[in-house]
């Protein structure tokens, strides 16, 4: 089954990416984690995302289009990236979620990916 691991980070976590003292540990942990996922042969797809302040949100209500700078909703923990992995069951997906650096400081949400209808 395919599961999406949805990584969230706080503003402080995002700031680590460019902090000279924190960045080596931050990127070291993430690249090791991504490497372990890749080497286990379970990676379907994935990406890291630029911080939430780079987001632009589009909304159309009653024919009226509004754009605003920033994410859809401000929260303590914001979307930072995701992996889609192919594993036998939820237990295995949870094991991989626990290993993500995000789980140690923010959180990782695990969601089953909806199966695509087969094209016949």
């Amino acid at each position, binding site marked *: 089954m395919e599961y999406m691991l949805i990584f969230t980070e706080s503003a402080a976590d995002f700031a680590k990416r460019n902090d000279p003292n924190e960045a080596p*540990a931050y990127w*070291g*942990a993430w*690249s*090791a*984690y*991504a*490497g*372990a*996922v890749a*080497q*286990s042969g379970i990676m379907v797809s994935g990406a890291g995302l630029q911080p939430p302040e780079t987001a632009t949100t589009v909304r159309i209500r009653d024919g009226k289009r509004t754009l605003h700078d920033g994410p859809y909703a401000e929260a303590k923990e914001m979307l930072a990236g995701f992996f889609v992995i192919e594993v036998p069951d*939820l*237990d295995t997906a*949870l*094991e991989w979620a*626990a*290993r993500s*650096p995000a*789980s*140690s*400081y923010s959180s990782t949400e695990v969601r089953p990916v909806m199966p695509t209808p087969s094209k016949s």
Partner: protein
Amino acid sequence: MKASASETLDATVRRSYATLLGYLASRAGGDLAGAEDALSEALLAAVKQWPEQGVPERPEAWLLSVARRRLIDDQRKSQVRERFSESIQQALESADELAGSGEGFPDERLKLLFVCTHPAIDEAMRTPLMLQTVLGLDATLIASAFLVSPVAIAQRLVRVKAKIKAAGIPFEVPEREQWDERFSFVLDAIYAAFSCGWQSSFESQTRGEMAVEAIRLGDLAVALVPGEPEALGLLSLMLHCHARRPARVDATGGYVPLDEQVIALWDHSMIDRAERVLKTAGEMGRPGRFQIEAAIQSVHAQRRVTGRVEWLVIAQLYESLLTFTGALGARIGHAIAVGHAYGAEQGWALLDALPMDRLEEHQPYWAARGHLLKQTGRVEAAREAYDRAIGLCDDAAVRGYLMGRRNAE
């Protein structure tokens, strides 16, 4: 609820949950789920009634009596079990008399331990079942400890209990000829509670809580079956490991490996107890896996006196351990000990000979590999192994430690 009523109830649950449940399940023909429901109802009634009506003089007897009424009602309602209900009702009536008579009621907790670890039950579910039925832990805590979804674990526990009932798994202590094997399942399940998450998250709070619960189970096993050296060995092993918990993290939250821990931070009275327990086990003259593992921990603890780790002795103990178990953890530990005792090349040779198929995602293996590769001067391969260990790690303290080792010259 008034403090005194709620405190009494908490204390009663902690002291007697397994005793009450074991007794009810035994009298209900081994219907664990039914007995649990009845006991829950009795506890709920206590929450409501004790603050108003006062705490009963003998709380256990009170709970038993309420639970018994509920069980009898259930028996009456159950068409399927009509044939049995008469005898069960009789048993329950006598149970109530017993509970009311002021005499103690029989201790059925050992049967409970054996039911939970019956070979017909999926091995992965034996420990969760034991934690729930013997200690009364809730499913959410068990789910967190075993990294399984709370909904899934709750469903699996329900299914397991339905199977116990449907398959007629007997609520009894096994016969002599099955004893050794069945008792080893009990000990394995207790150890699994202790070591849940051990493979990766050495330091998590959840793990600490589960370790305490597992030691409670170990104490219980020893109390119920005092003549089994392996039960003592397991208890000693758990006490040794748990005694060092305060020393595993430094002031900045960093992970400290065993041979670098500050001895003053160890819980010395717990270590003393671990040593006494192991000595008692040794005097019985029947060595086994848990006694040897405890002995290995005991050698580490002797650093208190000698100031050094006797790796030669540890390597020898691992060799005898491997005659009892081929578990990966033991084989990795053996390679590390040999590396210390006889040189990194020899340790590396042992580690490198392990079958890879079961180790791909085994974090301690990759950490050991990084360690031994580095010591034998294979710097680039060591970095790759450390990277893998870091990527498989689910604990921030250990992750930070491994990253430090990876980057150290």
